[in-house]
């Protein structure tokens, strides 16, 4: 009797070598896909969505690319997931983490082919990862005490991050923007407070940081266009028809005159509400919800600037910058905290009118206005700037800094090589392989820049043989250079996260010896 089929009809099972091969192939394919975007001379990708309109995105952000892929291979899904997590956790290094994991698997594939058990490879990788992390820890620079130096560190990190993006032409300008914005947060990682407004038109260089706050709204008709020493009430309340919500009550009348009476009462209620709001002594009222024409008219009569339909984030940010609280009831004006700012005015950026709040009390939030020739450029600029902001805000919390340009990889590779020499047994091969995978990153950076990677990386390795060397790849001049002099830095936290999650993911995929795929859920035909 032949072995019965134990799975459902469309389910499939792959075992042993085949399973391993399937996961290696999947992981390496993903790696090769994003590999070319790595480094300052990495190339971009065009992503076209299958949805309506076939929207196009041009990017070289690893996480964005991977997120939009529809992948069926389970190992590839693991890699996509680590990239996403890297994005959420530290914001940058999303490509590096996938490339490193992929390289680790590529090396592991070779080892498996020479009959080394995956478990041995894993334990070797673990030792190597630990050793590499310690090597980094020894070499970190921490300028927490020295504020001036720290600022320059931040600046360098921002420039390094931005140099691989579309903003690299104006990286000094944008690095300054990002550093200024992050420093205003005063250590909080709440990037929500930094608002990025994209307005097509002009060039990237015209982008600027505004210490005030810009709200993408129009000022109501007949209301003042400019207010000095504004007192702002930020509210979240219904200003359309203020219904009676209690007991599910509803209006039911039997004659026209009564309708008119009730309408009158409603109007009266609204008038009272507006009166109460005015009684706060304000001259600017910002509401999250709609404001109907009637109350708007009342506000205009009182000379109050009323802004309707500011979205939720806008409200929160506005409350944050002006120091007011978000109010929903208006019965005791004396205890509601009002927001203040020096000047509210309508400004024009490009063709659009925006409301600009300047001279705000709490300088925590700020707005970055991005200008650029097209939506695609702006989207990519926003992603790049977001990466830089994330890295900076994380660096403010964890102030340890490393050099960049392939320097950390070479330092780690050197230490790991040392370890391999000291370790007896088959693990040693795995540790060596780990070091090879690390070296692959500078190699790819050089390759992407069109340089002779074999020559450069060997030069780099020789340079690193000396203690306390700062050598890395200088992509611009195409030679080995001193990273400290060139001012190329990276955040320790990013590098550590790259190292650890890449190893973790590689380990996870290596441990697999069987893939069971369930039958895909049947779509019901909607005919």
């Amino acid at each position: 009797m032949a072995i019965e089929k134990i799975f459902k009809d469309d389910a499939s099972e792959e075992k042993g070598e085949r399973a391993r091969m399937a996961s290696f192939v999947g992981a390496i394919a993903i790696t090769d896909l994003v590999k070319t975007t790595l480094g300052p001379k990495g190339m971009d990708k065009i992503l076209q969505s299958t949805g309506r309109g076939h929207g196009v995105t041009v990017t070289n952000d690893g996480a964005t690319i991977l997120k939009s892929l529809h992948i069926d291979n389970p190992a590839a899904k693991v890699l996509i997931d680590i990239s996403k997590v890297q994005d959420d956790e530290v914001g940058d290094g999303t490509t590096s983490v996938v490339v490193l994991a992929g390289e680790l698997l590529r090396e592991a594939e070779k080892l498996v082919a020479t009959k080394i058990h995956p478990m041995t490879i894993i334990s070797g990788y673990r030792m190597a990862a630990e050793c590499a992390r310690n090597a980094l820890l020894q070499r970190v620079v921490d300028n927490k005490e020295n504020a001036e130096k720290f600022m320059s560190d931040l600046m360098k990190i921002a420039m390094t991050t931005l140099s691989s993006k579309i903003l690299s032409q104006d990286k000094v300008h944008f690095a300054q923007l990002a550093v200024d914005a992050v420093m205003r947060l005063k250590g909080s990682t709440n990037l929500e407070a930094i608002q990025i407004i994209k307005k097509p038109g002009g060039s990237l260089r015209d982008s600027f940081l505004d210490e005030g706050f810009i709200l993408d709204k129009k000022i109501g008709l007949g209301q003042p266009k400019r207010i000095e020493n504004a007192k702002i009430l930020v509210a979240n309340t219904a200003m359309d028809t203020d219904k009676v919500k209690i007991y599910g009550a509803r209006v039911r009348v039997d004659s026209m005159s009564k309708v008119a009476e009730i309408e009158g009462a409603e109007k009266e209620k609204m008038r009272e509400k507006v009166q109460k709001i005015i009684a706060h002594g304000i001259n600017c009222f910002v509401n999250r919800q709609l404001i109907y024409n009637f109350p708007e008219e009342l506000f205009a009569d009182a000379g109050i600037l009323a802004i309707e339909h500011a979205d939720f984030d806008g409200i929160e940010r506005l409350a944050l910058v002006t120091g007011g609280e978000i109010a929903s009831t208006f019965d005791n004006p004396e205890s509601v905290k009002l927001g203040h700012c020096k000047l509210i005015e309508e400004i024009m950026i490009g063709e659009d009118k925006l409301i600009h709040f300047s001279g705000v009390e709490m300088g925590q939030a700020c707005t970055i206005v991005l200008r650029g020739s097209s939506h695609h450029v702006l989207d990519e600029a926003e992603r790049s700037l977001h990466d830089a902001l994330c890295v900076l805000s994380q660096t403010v919390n964890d102030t340890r800094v490393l050099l960049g340009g392939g320097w950390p990889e070479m330092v780690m590779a050197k230490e790991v090589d040392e370890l391999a020499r000291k370790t007896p047994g088959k693990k040693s091969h795995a540790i060596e392989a780990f070091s090879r995978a690390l070296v692959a990153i500078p190699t790819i950076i050089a390759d992407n820049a069109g340089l002779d990677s074999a020559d450069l990386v060997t030069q780099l390795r020789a340079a690193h043989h000396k203690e306390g060397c700062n050598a890395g790849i200088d992509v611009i001049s195409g030679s080995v250079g001193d990273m400290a002099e060139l001012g190329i830095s990276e955040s320790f936290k990013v590098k550590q996260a790259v190292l650890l999650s890449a190893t973790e993911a590689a380990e996870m995929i290596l441990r697999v010896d069987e893939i069971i795929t369930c039958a895909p859920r049947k779509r019901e035909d909607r005919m």
Partner: protein
Amino acid sequence: MALAFDEYGRPFIILKEQDQKTRLRGIEAQKANISAGKAVARILRTSLGPKGMDKILQSPDGDVTITNDGATILEQMDVDNQIAKLMVELSRSQDYEIGDGTTGVVVMAGALLEQAERLLERGIHPIRIAEGYELASRIAVEHLEHISQKFDFGTEDIEPLVQTCMTTLSSKIVNRCKRHLAEISVKAVLSVADLERKDVNLDMIKVEGKVGGKLEDTELIYGITVDKDMSHPQMPKQIEDAKIAILTCPFEPPKPKTKHKVDIDTVEKFQTLRLQEQKYFDDMVQKCKDVGATLVICQWGFDDEANHLLMHRNLPAVRWVGGVELELIAIATGGRIVPRFQELTPEKLGRAGLVRERSFGTTKDKMLYIEHCANSRAVTIFIRGGNKMMIEETKRSIHDALCVARNLIRNNSIVYGGGSTEISCSIAVEAASDKYPGVEQYAIRAFADALDSIPMALAENSGLQPIETLSAVKSQQIKENNPHYGIDCNDVGTNDMRQQDVFETLIGKQQQILLATQVVKMILKIDDVISPSHY
């Protein structure tokens, strides 16, 4: 065509035999069943032990799970065969009862089936085999009791517990920091354990995970975490000595459930209702304030106006908290869940030393920590890890470790792991078999052979020569009369599991043998498989 006759002698058909309907009978059915059972066991065999491999499972929706937990693999495998489903049930019941050893039990059952097949070929009746297995399992379980050891631990001396949990964790992907996780699990179990009644309510331990960070950042929180944030962005993010009102009624205007109609037909009614509404909100907040609450946790949503009133009166609040979490909070803080504002009294408030909001990473991810609770019996294990699959797998591993710790508190007998107990049982069963006259003797001997297959699988997965290693260890056990010799999976250099500190729980092992025997008996007794036609 199965025909029968009723009392009047009229024939009727019991079972329609159609072309599509498959039916297997007699020895054919048994063989088919055994081969299906074996196929399932073979899938899990490579996952056994500290060097066992993982499986990737892709669900019908394309989600990926990576695990080596037997119960999880089988659950997600989407099997169609009836016998395979029995094996899935087997592993699940081990999971419910013991929580650990879900892979071992299936491998064991597979081995028993394999041995049974050989006996069937010799013409031994399946029932006799089943009875022989039953006898043998009894011998094995008794022998286990015999070689088990009691060991003492207290709330201070947790080392033995940690060691046992480490044995469990060492076969999982998390074995990189098994020490750390084992300690967390043991501490968690001990803090909720009722040592006098020897009982542990695992519901009191909440296992939460969030991607990001690294595995070493996993921590034990003496309190509760809730995946929510304060309802108003400007409420305080940290409250000390919080008095918590736990509500299941919404801060919203009431909507009576009975059928009603409030019609507004005059201006006066409109006015009164309006005033009532305002007062209602005010009363709600005032009520909470009056009893002295400094934090409101609510199962439902808030109206905008109520939200602002709360903020205004300096009363932080959390909304949309799930029912289970609400109960846990109530247990932890010693508060009562209050369904109406009218019933709010100071005694019903829960207490916590510290409530704080924490944000993670670069996204707007926030969690609320409720710590230093009045009743510190509820704890949370908060897992961090590189990716989603890792977190899920860690959750499963922690669950296993928690179950092991719980079993030890219930019954502090342990046996040694690494296949040593199976070898020892196999020797004992083998020796006992000769005493039985009759055909059962063969079945008992087969049982002993089946027991050997677990250490064999362990050795195989660890890259050792299975037959050589097993025979060496077996002869060593008999020669020195020491049941502590097992397979040296981690290449430490000694076979003595006592020196390697590899423990397993006695009840876990006993359950494995009993459950595996039961299922195999059930499978052996089947001689007719009727499956419906596909339509």
